């Protein structure tokens, strides 16, 4: 919806009509000339041009507030982003995309040396996801990774930086 207020552009013309430098459709120019002429005659000496047409250049700069949904891609986009599938996978848990349509896996570092990876926005059985993540990382690294499950917030925190691998794994699983 366009903003409700419109500002009026006034151009003072000393003693004559000044057309605005921007091209306008012929009909509106003719009408503008007609009303400008009548205004000019009513006000007498100095004519005042009123035009609200140029406000469209301001309106197109005003940003939207809602994040748009991304265009359709087959497979992954050239940037490496993969769209979420239409149907969610049939697993006991579901991982939603973030509001910018990305996979919600984040790496964290505390005190300069404590590295962890956080998987957020988990709905359903978080423990099943924990089990699957541990299995995947066991195959990846060859040793057991420590994880922390928070059922209340629906997050899994994994010790170590595994952001890229987990993102690829989750996309491959269909989230």
């Amino acid at each position, binding site marked *: *919806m*366009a*903003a*409700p*207020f419109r500002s009026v552009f006034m151009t003072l013309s000393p003693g004559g009509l000044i057309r605005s430098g921007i091209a306008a459709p012929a009909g509106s120019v003719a009408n503008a000339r007609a009303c400008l002429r009548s205004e000019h005659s009513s006000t007498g000496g100095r004519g005042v041009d009123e035009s609200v047409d140029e406000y469209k250049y301001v*309106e197109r700069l*005003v*940003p*939207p*507030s*809602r*994040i748009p949904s991304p265009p359709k891609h087959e497979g992954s986009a050239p940037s490496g982003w993969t769209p979420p599938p*239409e*149907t*969610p996978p049939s697993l006991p848990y*579901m991982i*939603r995309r973030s*509001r910018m349509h990305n996979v919600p896996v984040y790496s964290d570092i505390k005190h300069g040396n404590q590295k962890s990876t956080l998987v957020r926005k988990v*709905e359903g059985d978080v423990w099943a996801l924990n089990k699957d993540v541990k299995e995947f990382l066991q195959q990846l690294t060859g040793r057991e990774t420590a994880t922390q499950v928070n059922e*209340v*917030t*629906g997050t899994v925190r994994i010790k170590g930086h595994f952001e890229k691998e987990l993102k690829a794994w989750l996309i491959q699983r269909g989230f």
Partner: protein
Amino acid sequence: MFRATLTVCGGGIAKRLFSSFSGESALPSNLRLPPNLIGVPREKRAFPASTDLPVLRRCEADIPAHLAPVQTWLQSLESRHSEPLGVVDLHPDVFSVPVRLDILHAVEVWQRNFKRISYAKVKSRAEVSGGGRKPWKQKGSGRARHGSIRSPIWRGGGVAHGPRGPTSYYYMLPMKVRVQGLKIALTSKLAQDYLHIVDSLEIPTPDPHYLQDLAKHRQWGDSVLIVDVGEEFPQNILQATESLKTINIIPAIGLNVHSMLKHESLVLTLEAVKFLEKKLLWHDTRFTPLYPFKLPYSDLP
């Protein structure tokens, strides 16, 4: 006064939350009820199976593919005995979110405290009048040494660490936390069977007893909060609720967690549900504000 809640589980329970709120089909075995129990256990109407009844209202916003809309009865305030008109859909991201009690507590505490200004102030030893002169000389009088008669150890002296001036307890929780608090409150009301959807607020009489009788008959609880959108309400309901302390009516922009927790039952009209869904779901897909949302954006208001 105790009230035991007996819930008869229906078909749509899979969508509802089985947290510490909703009880099982029977009361727990280790529950001891006092012999002088007041009040009839609330009997919940069996929830309809989603397939047979026609849905009178669908959600406008898109529902994620892995979620299904929550359903509830649509009631009418026309007469005391009127049956529910049908079934309405409610958006799961507003009415079926994970119930985070810590967020609910944080929002409730914020609502109580952010407006608080405590005006308590006491005089310190500098502000109590007098006490500029040393009462007696330092040595030789035999008494304890003192510098002023208004020091905190003296009777009538200033207070050492008292409240100093008007203090403000203002702080703001993040917008998304407050929004989540509203969603959690609505979810809890629905899950505990304290949420009632009504088509409109037209009542036959402006008599307050009619509303009280209706609430008692339908087992809505001790207190009811009625919510509608817009500035005009029907005259009958305004007159009826004016004199009642426990049944209150507010516009939808005035809905807040404290009022929802204070009143036992919540009654929303269909327009109020539409308004709340639209406003609360916008926060899930909005950008972070470049400038305050009060200023115009291309798709606001």
